């Protein structure tokens, strides 16, 4: 009986390891560091911001996608302006910003902006 329980826990452990192995863990270069800083600044006090990432190829590209929870009362065009300002402050110049609604397939674009 004991070995049956052991196999059960080994099964759970194996699948848990596979789960962990699918975390997003791309190596972080200079562009990735800057993108990460944009995410940290943009998500401060904005719980609806899920992520900021490069979404076109080849990388690094000039396109930033901001994944958000669709929240009433937010002006997404103004939010895109804010994202532009933060990206520019972080040294990401003349970016194309796409504000994407999480949970839609494919993502709905809530706003887009070409940063000057």
């Amino acid at each position: 009986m004991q070995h049956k329980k052991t196999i059960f826990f080994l099964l759970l452990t194996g699948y848990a390891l596979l789960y962990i192995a699918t975390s997003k863990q791309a190596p972080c270069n200079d562009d990735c560091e800057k993108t990460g800083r944009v995410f940290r600044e943009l998500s401060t006090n904005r719980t609806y911001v899920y992520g900021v990432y490069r979404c076109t190829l080849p990388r690094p590209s000039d396109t930033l996608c901001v994944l958000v929870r669709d929240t009433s009362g937010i002006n997404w065009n103004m939010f895109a302006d804010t994202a532009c300002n933060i990206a520019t402050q972080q040294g990401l110049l003349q970016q194309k910003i796409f504000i994407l609604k999480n949970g839609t397939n494919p993502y709905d674009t809530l706003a887009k902006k070409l940063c000057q």
Partner: protein
Amino acid sequence: MNPLAKSIALHSILPLLIGFLLYFFFRPGVAFIQWIDKREPLLPLHQLNQVQHWLIYSGPDFCWCYSLSAALFTWHQWQKKPVRFFWVFVLLLVVMQEILQGWLLPHFTFDWTDMIAAILAFWLSYLFVRQKHAA
């Protein structure tokens, strides 16, 4: 091949293999693909249509959940000592792992589509593995 080995190969290993291939070719940003090979995805995110998006982003979750549920149902059958409401434990595991992803941002992402895929995978596994053995 004996029925147990066949069930493991078909319902547990094959879905994991399909999930691995989806990650390898279309979502190489995840940790275990980065360890194997630093590569770019075959299709960029914004060029995906709805079906491609579902297959690439919810497909691996579906495969993992189907494989896990099938492995647990196969184990339950193999150990020959019925555990009451074992299927509830498996369903909770499948649902909780998806909810947990919402707490592990930005390394994981919670998505209702993934949740539906996970529950669908559990249900199919229940139908094909548990019910088959119960019959």
